[in-house]
């Protein structure tokens, strides 16, 4: 399937990655090559095959629903590009 620039623009938007208009054709071309490669999967008969959910048969462990750890506010904020008064700061979201 050929990916056009409109689709490439839409995917970039969904992925929250800014792509300039003049870069879209090359991006679309790259997608087309990869998706063309992926399309080989259509040759495989997957009737009655379950999609894999876990590569090793394992049951996730359970534990009591309780607080086990915490109290790291300063550590968590330490690497933030903008932290103020104990919070992550971002541009205004709600007017």
């Amino acid at each position, binding site marked *: 399937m050929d990916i056009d620039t409109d689709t490439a623009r839409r995917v970039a938007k969904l*992925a929250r990655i800014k792509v300039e208009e003049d870069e879209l054709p090359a991006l679309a071309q790259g*997608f087309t090559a*990869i998706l063309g490669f992926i399309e*080989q999967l259509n040759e495989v008969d997957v009737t009655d095959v379950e*999609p*894999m959910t*876990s590569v090793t048969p394992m049951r996730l*462990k359970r534990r009591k629903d309780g607080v086990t750890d915490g109290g790291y506010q300063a550590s968590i904020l330490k690497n933030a*590009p903008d932290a103020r008064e104990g919070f992550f700061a971002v*541009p205004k979201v709600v007017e």
Partner: protein
Amino acid sequence: MSLNTLTIADARDKLRAREITAVELTEACLTAIEGASALNAFVHHTPEIARAQAEAADARLQGDDEAPALCGIPLGIKDLFCTKGVASQAGSNILKGFRPEYESTITAQLFASGAVMLGKLNMDEFAMGSSNETSAYGNAVNPWRRGNDDTALTPGGSSGGSASAVAADLCLGATGTDTGGSIRQPAAFTGITGVKPTYGRCSRWGVIAFASSLDQAGPMTRTVRDAAILLQGMAGHDPKDSTSADIPVPDFEAMLTGDIRGTTIGIPREYRMDGMPDEIETLWKQGTEMLRDAGATIRDISLPHTKYALPAYYVIAPAEASSNLARYDGVRYGHRARLAEGDGITEMYEKTRAEGFGAEVKRRVMIGTYVLSAGFYDAYYNRARKVRSLIKRDFETVFADGIDAILTPATPSSAFGLGEMADADPVAMYLNDVFTVTVNLAGLPGIAVPAGLDAQGLPLGLQLIGKPWAEGELLNHAYVLERAAGFVSKPARWW
């Protein structure tokens, strides 16, 4: 002989016999690293930490005859591992300046055993690449060259810095990670040993995620014995990783008996690719003969869905990556773009990610976004997961049929020149992992062992694939192959 050229096993024995000290060993490595900036393998240097750890290791070795094998052993750590207070960027500009407030489980285990950290190692950005050319730090360089030709070659990827550092004797061993071949392909390109353990053998906690159902950390070393020792230090159950297996870790080194009589080795016909160089075909045959001579039974087998492994991988890995990398949004850590007047939070996300991610990471995040998007989820993602079930079933069938391990080439070529693939289609680069990626999709252990040189004088590796949790048996087969192949070549020093 410089101490940095010792194997882990020899260094351990000399440390225990008090013939050398951890401080001397560490200084030898630090000197080697200083003289090897042309390889661009170490990208964050931690000599103060190394010296302090070495001193502590010497004190421990003095007082404790039962000190762990890794006590005092200088290692390099792939940049994908979070190391407390030390830059951990996954080779990406989006994590520039990130210094984790915590330690990955694997590095914590290694340091608790007394291992010494020399620094962080170069890698492809977020482990996405097969040549180390997607790194924000620039290319790592292979210490090997084609005879007298001074063309700079790739050490492979994504664990390119780890491979280059181990092959050039800058450290005694290194940690790597492998999502589609990122330990085994660089190991093969640099003439060293690399193990991708069974999925769940080593904790993923604190290892920056690429594709969580495929990622697995493992050792990169100069010998099979060293791989057994380093894997021992990395493996084990971790309650902080829900996919880490709560099963005992055997003594891997003790399982290196060199006796493989009575085992059965499968040779999968689907791994004989069109256009594969004769040298690789020949090496594979030689490897088969070595295992036969050692008393193994050789059997031709079929893994019919092999051809579909790479296309399935290039749906599943980008899908998981698009989800995992959604966290890089400029809010909690790393880079945030400078915003223009009136920019809101969406512009912050979009500009931050456009500036912070490199081209290959963007491409994969967007491919992942596409295959997971409404209307394509079934056609791509679910179909790929079904094919993945079939690939795993192929292996289960041959193992149930009496196969103990499978022998294949490690890579379809020897190391290529940096920049040589620049104009190629992205899919051409992806083909590097054609022999290794099946192992990740099936969650199996795999090992690359150096087995010979090609006509250009570059190393070539063979891969052994084992049953789940059979790393010990797998290492023993690799040990037999290593001894029979007698690979002792080292790159001639030019750096």
